[in-house]
């Protein structure tokens, strides 16, 4: 970081001239040795942005290949590597680290804490991530290439039929897991232990609540992922047969253990987004959140239910009928608390004095499009119907609606919402709106037709397809390229703010925003709340 640059931060911040504590270390050591939650948050966010584009460029390869039927650009094995690594990078490298980064930045400010509870461990959690992804991505350049068994790495694809990259994948996942667990422990301990006096449970902003529950889910299921990758490792390299019927094991056992992790994992990737949306909607509707308590209860019930639905990913594996029914009903049950949330957001907007700045636009798009993803989820939850949909593009459509227009849109909304607080300048509203409309249109071109080709029977994870899907796929690919390009606008907006180009932001930033984070100056001083603030009113 250059001297000049940091000076501009200092001068942009007029509120703490007296403050010897606010001195900031410079250069190399600032970023590598840091214990500051804001610096670590920034590191997480920038790393995740890099990974978003890494994973995104793999998606571009996939869409280029699928632009036409037949094989054009890549061979099938490389295609499989692309779908696999794309999924892994997006899940573990982009979405999850962004949420941890946002928690780092916002949670201490929202609860009036001086920093995270365990600041050194915080730094360790972050720096494990670049290490893990160096290992994972290095396999792309190895003989035989990267893992190609899908992000779900089902046995025996990941054991009997995989190549040397398996071990690199396994140890990379271990590092990601250690990082996530430590990150989650830090966040949950911060929230439990470092709330300012008077910041009672039912005053916590919903972003904080959703993170408590997310952190709990992370601590509960990341070790299970560690367990299952360990079994993959020993099955492949040490002659065990957990997932091999010849030794008394079962490949389906892999799926049970994996999805016991995997389903809570998808909620890990959406709950913090729920929290962000629950902060944004009231701010721009200028009304308190409708049904705060029910939001908290809904989040908790979603988390609970997420442990007993995992086998909805396995309806076609030949489970006993009783199990199929059990998992069908529990899965449908999840739609209830999810519906409560959607209802509450809409009710919050009802008769609100709304304005439509970029964060609100993304939040509204989130509500509509996430709901579409939830509805396709419900269709998939119907066991007999899923027999038809399983492993088709319909599933791909479902989870991209919940993950891209859900999790990612939630994140983007959050970045627009909070970036004035981080950098001290307003983003360009014109560019933001432009980014929004480009994203909205292209993302629907990209994912909506996938429902149709899926229902018509186009299988996922295959580099070629039958001729009747050609037009749709060309259209989808164009949507994909446009969506990729639109995100360059996002980067432009973000970097303009980082370079302090834009109107100076006030402390309050948004007229209707409430909470401690809006009471500190923008940009937030390097150290906030060295003595706990006073908490006055409700949430």
């Amino acid at each position, binding site marked *: 970081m250059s001297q000049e640059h940091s000076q501009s931060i200092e001068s942009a911040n007029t509120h703490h001239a007296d403050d010897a504590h606010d001195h900031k270390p410079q250069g190399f050591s*600032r970023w590598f040795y840091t214990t500051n939650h804001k610096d670590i948050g920034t590191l997480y966010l920038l790393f995740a942005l890099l990974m978003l584009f890494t994973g995104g460029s793999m998606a571009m390869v996939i869409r280029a290949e699928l632009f036409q039927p037949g094989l054009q650009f890549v061979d099938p094995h490389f295609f499989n590597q692309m779908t696999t690594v794309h999924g892994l990078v997006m899940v573990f490298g982009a979405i999850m680290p962004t949420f941890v980064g946002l928690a780092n930045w916002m949670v201490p400010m929202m609860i009036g804490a001086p920093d995270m509870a365990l600041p050194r461990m915080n730094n*360790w959690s972050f720096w494990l991530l670049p290490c893990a992804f160096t*290992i994972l991505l290095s396999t792309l350049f190895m003989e035989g290439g990267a893992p190609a068994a899908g992000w779900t790495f089902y046995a025996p694809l990941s054991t009997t039929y995989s190549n040397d990259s398996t071990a690199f994948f396994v140890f990379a996942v271990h590092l990601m897991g250690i990082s996530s667990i430590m990150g989650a422990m830090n966040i949950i301990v911060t929230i439990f232990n470092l709330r300012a006096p008077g910041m009672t449970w039912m005053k916590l902003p919903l972003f904080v609540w959703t993170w408590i529950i997310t952190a709990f889910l992370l601590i509960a299921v990341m*070790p*299970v992922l560690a367990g299952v990758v360990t079994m993959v490792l020993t099955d492949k390299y040490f002659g065990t*047969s957990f997932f091999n019927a010849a*030794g008394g094991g079962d490949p389906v056992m892999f799926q049970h253990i994996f999805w016991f992790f995997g389903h809570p994992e998808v909620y890990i990737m959406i709950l913090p987004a729920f929290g962000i949306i629950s902060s944004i909607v009231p701010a721009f509707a200028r009304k308190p959140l409708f049904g705060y308590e029910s939001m908290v209860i809904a989040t908790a019930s979603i988390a609970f239910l997420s442990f007993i639905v995992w086998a909805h990913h396995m309806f076609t594996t030949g489970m006993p009928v009783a199990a199929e029914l059990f998992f069908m009903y529990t899965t449908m049950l999840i739609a209830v608390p999810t519906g409560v949330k959607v209802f509450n957001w809409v009710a919050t907007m009802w008769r609100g004095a709304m304005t439509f700045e970029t964060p609100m636009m993304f939040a509204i798009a989130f509500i509509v499009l996430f709901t579409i993803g939830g509805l396709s989820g419900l269709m998939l939850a119907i066991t007999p119907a899923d027999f038809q949909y399983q492993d088709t593009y319909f599933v791909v459509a479902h989870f991209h609606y919940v993950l891209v227009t859900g999790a990612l849109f939630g994140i983007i909304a959050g970045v627009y919402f909070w970036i004035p607080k981080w950098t001290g300048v307003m983003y360009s509203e014109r560019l933001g709106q432009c980014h929004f409309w480009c994203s909205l249109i292209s993302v629907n071109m990209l994912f909506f037709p996938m429902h149709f080709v899926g229902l018509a029977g186009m299988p996922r994870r295959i580099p070629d397809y039958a001729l009747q899907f050609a037009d749709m796929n060309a259209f989808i690919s164009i949507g994909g390229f446009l969506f990729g390009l639109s995100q360059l606008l996002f980067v432009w907006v973000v970097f303009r703010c980082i370079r302090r180009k834009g109107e100076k932001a006030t402390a309050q930033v948004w007229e209707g925003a409430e909470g401690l984070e809006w009471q500190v100056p923008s940009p937030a001083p390097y150290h906030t709340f060295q003595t706990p603030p006073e908490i006055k009113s409700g949430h």
Partner: protein
Amino acid sequence: MSAGYQHYYVPHQSHWPIVGAIALFLMGFGAAHWVNDDFIGPILLTIGFGMLLLMLFGWFGNVIEESMSGLYSEQMDHSFRQGMSWFIFSEIMFFAAFFGALFYARMISVPWLDGAGDNAMTAAVLWPNFEAIWPLIKTPAGVETQAMPWEGIPLINTLILLASSVTLQFAHMGIEQQKPAQLGFFLMLTIILGFCFLALQGYEYVHAYEELGLRLDSGVYGNTFFLLTGFHGMHVTLGAIFLTVIFLRIAVKGHFTSEKHFGFQAAAWYWHFVDVVWLNLFVFVYVL
């Protein structure tokens, strides 16, 4: 929320975390090379492990120094306690994955291979001669082994670990009632019991390999046996080292008071957790 405000200590910069990250990177990268039979693997792994040790010494050294110089408030102490509790919870879930595999193999995959439920065709087509029994002493593919009986070493080991939890409790009472002799004696005894357990476990492994033909690759019985007991053994090792460090801190440096001894308690929690895991192991892996 406590009423009075104490300063919450936020450490300044530290280079240990990034050393730790690089250490784990080298270990993971090295291990991956190693299992693929690349000679660079063990080298990287060793360097990484060395760095990890260095990091642990340095980092814990800092924490101890800060704690001794009174920088930590009561709130900080809560952070450590809660952090340790969540860590133990994550460890429980790690073991849960392997117990889950054990239950699944035993209750589902093995019986199914013999035609249970509606799987008659599985049995008829794949391995008609396979018989579902647990412990699985003959796999469908025909690998044979003998089961590990629970009488003998496993039972002795159970008693040893149970006794060690009790002795550790006496040591804890020693620290709280300021009886250094009791503390030292019982802590030492706990550590010795821990190492006895490990020695017997090592002996049992040799016995399994050489006399019973029970190996890591003898089918899902051997798999679950060795992974569960192996990871448990690693945890006992860690716990015993943890306790040894605490012992040295008490004996050599004179750390800990009757009120402030969280380092001791963390080690004790860990030890009790390892003990409970063993009880489950003993019941589900050996006896039943």
